[in-house]
C-alpha cells in the first residue's frame, strides 16, 4: 500500500517537475546556502541507531558527519519511512539517503548514486540449533523462507537455485523476517549481513538465532543516493568520501563497528 502510494507520488512529482523547470541556483548551491545536508535515515544497528545515551550513533552516522565536515555543511539526520525515500528525496524534504542503500540498476536509473563504499551480502539466519543443517539445497527443501519484500534477500529467495525447493513468504521488513524465524512460523530468514551483525548479537531478543556459516548470496554494494539532477552535489560527496578515506578516518570508524572487512573505499 505504502509503496503504491510512493509510486503514485513519484509519478505525480515527475509530471510536475517536467512542467516546472526553470533557471535556479545550482543543486550544490541549494545545499550550501541552507548550510545543511539533510540525510534520510532509518534506525538500524550498526548503521544508524540510538546509542545507550540516546544519541544517534552508528557507522553511517559517523561516516556522514565526517563527510559533511569535509563539505563544510552541517549533517542533519532526518528519520524517514523507508518506503517513501524516493518521494522524500524528490520533495526535497531530505537531500540524500545514507542508510546502507543497496546499489542496483533501478536505483541508478532514478537517483544519483555515489561511489560504492561498502560491500554487503545476503545471509541465512535460522534458529541456532538449525544453523548446521541448512547447508545444501537438499536441506532447505520444503523449508519456509522469509525475506523483506522487494529486498535483495527476496531476489535471492526467489531466484537462487539453492532455494528452488523451498517455500518463500515475503514480509514487510527485515526485522519482521527475523521475528518469523524466532516465533517458528518460518525456518530461514534471508537478510543483509550488515543487519545481522547488529540484530542477532548477544543480549538481544534474537540471541538464539544464528547466521548459517559459509553460505553467502548476492554480494552487493552500498552507496549514497541523491536526487538524479544533483550531479554537482554527487561529485562533491564522492570527493569528500575519498578525502575521509585518505586521512584514515573512514577505516577508524569502520573498525569501531567491526565493518572493516567490508569497506570498499581505501586510502590512496
Amino acid at each position, binding site marked *: *500500500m*505504502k509503496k503504491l*502510494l510512493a509510486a503514485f*507520488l513519484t509519478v*505525480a*512529482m515527475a509530471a*510536475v*517537475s517536467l512542467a*516546472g523547470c526553470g533557471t*535556479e541556483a545550482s543543486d550544490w548551491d*541549494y545545499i550550501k546556502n541552507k548550510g545543511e545536508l539533510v540525510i534520510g535515515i*532509518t*534506525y*538500524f*544497528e550498526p548503521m544508524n*541507531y*540510538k546509542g*545507550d545515551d*540516546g544519541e544517534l550513533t552508528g557507522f553511517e552516522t559517523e561516516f556522514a558527519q565526517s563527510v559533511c565536515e569535509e563539505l563544510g555543511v552541517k549533517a542533519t539526520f*532526518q*528519520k*524517514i*519511512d523507508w518506503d*517513501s525515500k524516493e*518521494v*522524500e528525496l*524528490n*520533495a*526535497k*524534504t531530505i537531500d540524500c539517503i545514507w542508510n546502507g542503500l543497496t546499489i542496483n540498476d533501478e536505483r541508478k536509473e532514478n537517483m544519483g548514486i555515489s561511489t560504492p563504499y561498502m560491500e554487503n551480502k545476503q545471509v541465512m539466519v535460522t534458529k541456532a540449533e538449525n544453523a548446521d543443517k541448512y547447508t545444501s539445497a537438499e536441506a532447505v527443501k520444503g523449508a519456509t523462507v522469509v525475506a523483506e519484500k522487494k529486498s535483495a534477500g527476496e531476489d535471492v529467495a526467489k531466484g537462487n537455485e539453492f532455494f528452488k525447493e523451498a517455500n518463500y513468504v515475503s514480509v514487510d*521488513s*527485515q*526485522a*519482521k523476517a*527475523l*521475528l518469523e524465524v*524466532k516465533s517458528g512460523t518460518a525456518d530461514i530468514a534471508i537478510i543483509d549481513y550488515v543487519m545481522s551483525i*547488529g*540484530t*542477532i*548479537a548477544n543480549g*538481544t*531478543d*534474537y*540471541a538464539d538465532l544464528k547466521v548459517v556459516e559459509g553460505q553467502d548470496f548476492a554480494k552487493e554494494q552500498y552507496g549514497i543516493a541523491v536526487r538524479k539532477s544533483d550531479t554537482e552535489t554527487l561529485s562533491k560527496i564522492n570527493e569528500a568520501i575519498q578525502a575521509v578515506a585518505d586521512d584514515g578516518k573512514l577505516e577508524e570508524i569502520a573498525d569501531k563497528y567491526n565493518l572493516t572487512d567490508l569497506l570498499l573505499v581505501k586510502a590512496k
Partner: protein
Amino acid sequence: MDQFINVTQQLFKGFGENCFIFAITLLLALPLGLIVSMGSMTKFKPLKWLTKTFVWIIRGTPLMLQLFVVFYIPPLVSNGSFSFPRMQAALIAFVINYAAYFSEIYRGGIESIPRGQYEAGQVLGMKKTQIFFKVVLMQVIKRITAPIGNEIITLVKDTSLASVIAIPEILMNAKDFSMEGLIWPLFYSALFFLAFCGILTLLFSFIEKKLDYYKG
C-alpha cells in the same frame, strides 16, 4: 532493567507525539466539524454541494494517503521551496479528516432533533441562534456523545499513522527497537494505547451518566 527503563522512556517520548496529535486534532476538529456540518445542511445549494463533495473525498480516501498528500504534494509542486514541517502536515491531515467525520456525526445528531423543538422555540419568539444554542445544542450533545466517543477512541489509535511521514510516534519507536533486536517493545506499546483508551472510556461513561439527568 536498564533496558526496560530505556525502552519505557523511548516509548513515552513517542507516545507524547501521539498525545500531542490527539489533543490538537480534537481541539480543532470538534469545532471545525460543526462548521462543516452547517455547510452540509445549508439551504444554499452550491455550498451544500461543495461541502458534501469535501466530506465525500475526505471520508472516501485513506487517512494515510491524505498524510502523504499534505506533506509531499506542496514541496513536489513547488520544487522544494514550500513544505509544511512534518508535525504541521500531520496535524492538518488529521484535523481535516476528523472534522469530516465529526461533521457527519453532528449532522446526524442535529437532524435527529424533532422539528417540534425548533417550532416551539420559534413560537416563543426566539432567534434562530438562540434556538440552536439554547434548545437544540444540548440535546444534540447528548445524542452524539456515544458516536463521538467512539470516533475519539479511534483517533487515539489512528495517531500511529503519522509514522508514514516519519513522525517519531510510539509505534515507530517500538519498531526501531525491533530493528535493534528487541521484539517486546512492540507489544509493550499496546499497553500505552490500552491505558489511554481505558481512561477515555471511563471519561465518556462519566459524561454519559452526567447527561442522563433527562430522557429524550
